[in-house]
């Protein structure tokens, strides 16, 4: 009981220095946690992807559409339970800054495929009945203060013109990582307009989303679908929804990598700060360590004394930083609006945060700990004068 008390009192000896070091650690651990959560958020779409969903797109790239006629042939492939489709609409809501994904979807089948979008039956019915109806996620509706029945104008970029939608439903995510930042409307409404204004672009689909009866069939079904359209005017590439989502992340993977490298750098920075603090503390106390040694205490006791203090300070900072991560993430999520969905701090992140604090404490404490254990009694006592 003596040792912990001694460690605690040593840590509290230079309150200002200890306080500053704890603060530094808390900031670093917080920054690490937030950066990791940002990276997690990028992958959230992939994590939320259903294992039984496949996505079929044009083999050249996403920019090229597929003819709607592919739908029937895809549906006949054995193992496919349901087929839906969507087009990326692009567009601008008031200004370019208001970015959120907008999709024209085959309404009925699409909502069936995404049971994680919880939509009240009445709103679902209202949406399906209104060709200009739209459904949005709860978070998106809150961001712009939209209410049911409200009209929402979009300026077309990929599909020119002014578009007007009526909000008919607001869905909640079933899972914490369900994307509540999406704007959905009727593909039929888009297609009718195109038939009138740009008939060459009508009856074209961005991607088909299909639901399998058994997740194990994914590889076989993908192969069969792509073989079906091989050498046709619109060759397809079919992959799992997860792989499809990961494809987006991989396009910015250098940025993801940079963020990961940077999040490790903050750990090194705070390691320097911590090592400095412990080095100075041990340097000042060499005569005390020599005295303890003269009284008969062994090097192991001194090592524990120094290391214990380092770990104690580091863990205090780590706990504070980890505790602050949750409110900070909530604030960050509120600030960035719908840019990231599923901005949730994972348990792994919190465990890692504490482990990093512990690691910094041990590493920073090691050099002074060896110094204290190895100090010669004579030299240590002499340094007092």
């Amino acid at each position, binding site marked *: 009981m003596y040792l912990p008390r*001694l460690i605690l009192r040593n840590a509290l000896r230079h309150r200002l220095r200890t306080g500053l070091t704890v603060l530094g650690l808390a900031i670093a651990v917080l920054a690490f946690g937030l950066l990791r959560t940002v990276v997690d958020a990028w992958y959230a779409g992939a994590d939320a992807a259903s294992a039984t969903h496949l996505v079929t797109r044009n083999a050249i790239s996403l920019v090229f559409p597929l003819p709607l006629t592919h739908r029937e042939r895809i549906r006949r492939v054995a193992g496919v339970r349901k087929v839906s489709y969507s087009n990326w609409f692009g567009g601008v809501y008031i200004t370019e800054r208001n970015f959120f994904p907008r999709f024209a979807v085959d309404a009925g089948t699409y909502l069936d495929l995404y049971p994680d979008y919880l939509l009240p039956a009445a709103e679902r019915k209202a949406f399906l009945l209104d060709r200009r109806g739209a459904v949005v996620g709860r978070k998106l509706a809150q961001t712009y203060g939209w209410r049911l029945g409200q009209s929402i104008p979009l300026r077309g970029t990929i599909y020119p013109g002014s578009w007007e939608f009526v909000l008919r439903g607001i869905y909640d995510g079933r899972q914490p990582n369900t994307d509540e930042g999406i704007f959905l409307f009727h593909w039929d409404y888009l297609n009718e307009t195109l038939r009138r204004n740009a008939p060459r672009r009508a009856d074209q689909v961005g991607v088909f989303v299909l639901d399998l009866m058994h997740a194990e069939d994914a590889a076989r079904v993908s192969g069969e679908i792509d073989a079906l359209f091989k050498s046709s005017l619109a060759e397809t590439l079919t992959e799992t929804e997860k792989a499809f989502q990961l494809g987006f992340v991989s396009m910015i993977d250098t940025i993801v990598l940079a963020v990961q490298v940077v999040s490790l750098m903050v750990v090194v920075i705070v390691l320097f700060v911590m090592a400095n603090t412990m080095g100075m503390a041990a340097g000042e106390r060499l005569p*005390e360590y020599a005295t303890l040694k003269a009284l008969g205490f*062994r090097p192991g006791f001194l090592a524990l004394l120094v290391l214990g203090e380092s770990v104690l300070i580091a863990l205090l900072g780590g706990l504070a930083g980890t505790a602050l991560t949750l409110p900070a993430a909530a604030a960050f999520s509120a600030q960035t609006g719908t840019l990231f969905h599923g901005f949730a701090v994972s348990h792994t992140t919190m465990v890692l945060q504490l482990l990093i604090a512990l690691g910094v404490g041990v590493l920073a404490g090691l050099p002074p700990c060896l110094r204290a254990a190895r100090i010669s009694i004579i030299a240590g006592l002499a340094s007092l004068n």
Partner: protein
Amino acid sequence: MQEASEVPAVRMQQLRKSYHRGNQEVPVLNGIDLVIEAGAFVALVGPSGSGKSTLLNLIAGLDQPSGGDLEVFGQELSVLSEGALARWRASHVGFIFQFYNLLPVLNALENVELPLLLTGLSRRERREHALAALSMVGLSDRLTHYPSQLSGGQQQRVAIARAVVTDPLLLVADEPTGDLDRASAEEVLAMLEELNEALGKTIIMVTHDNRAAQRARRRIHLDKGELREGADGV
């Protein structure tokens, strides 16, 4: 103390110690022959650099000799490993330093209790021993004071309590009055005398202070690493 009267407290033969400064070997003690009988109160005196502190450190087991033999209470110190030496010090030697060397983060009682951590005593026993030691040095009313709240003389008395709390045979004191005013110095010296006379502790004290040296029962002069036992010698 029967055993102590048969075995001398310290016996050394041709004890040598030298330090390395760069490539140079600097001799500090050049072959010292000395016997200090158990129950003695000895003052080691001599000019700065004479080697008296080095000799004290060797006797206390803080440092290892470069050559020669050294036995303390019959124990050959050079055969002990570092760990064993540490345990030996804990049970056989009490230390009194010029600057007291109390841990600033511990109060008086805790500082005195510190060496007892190395014994098998229970928590309650430790506390009782520490209280007894502090009452012996007259500081029962300062138990929860921290070193910074005590005067120099009081701090040195706490240090003396810490030195005797494990009931060692040998007390070593390095300039115990060096940092104290006259009155406090007198108190400390009186306390050492009493420890020697009433409890039979062997005390070896390094000092510059003539008055302090006079209180010892034997004075050993060192000069340039050699023994010059004075006229008032044995």
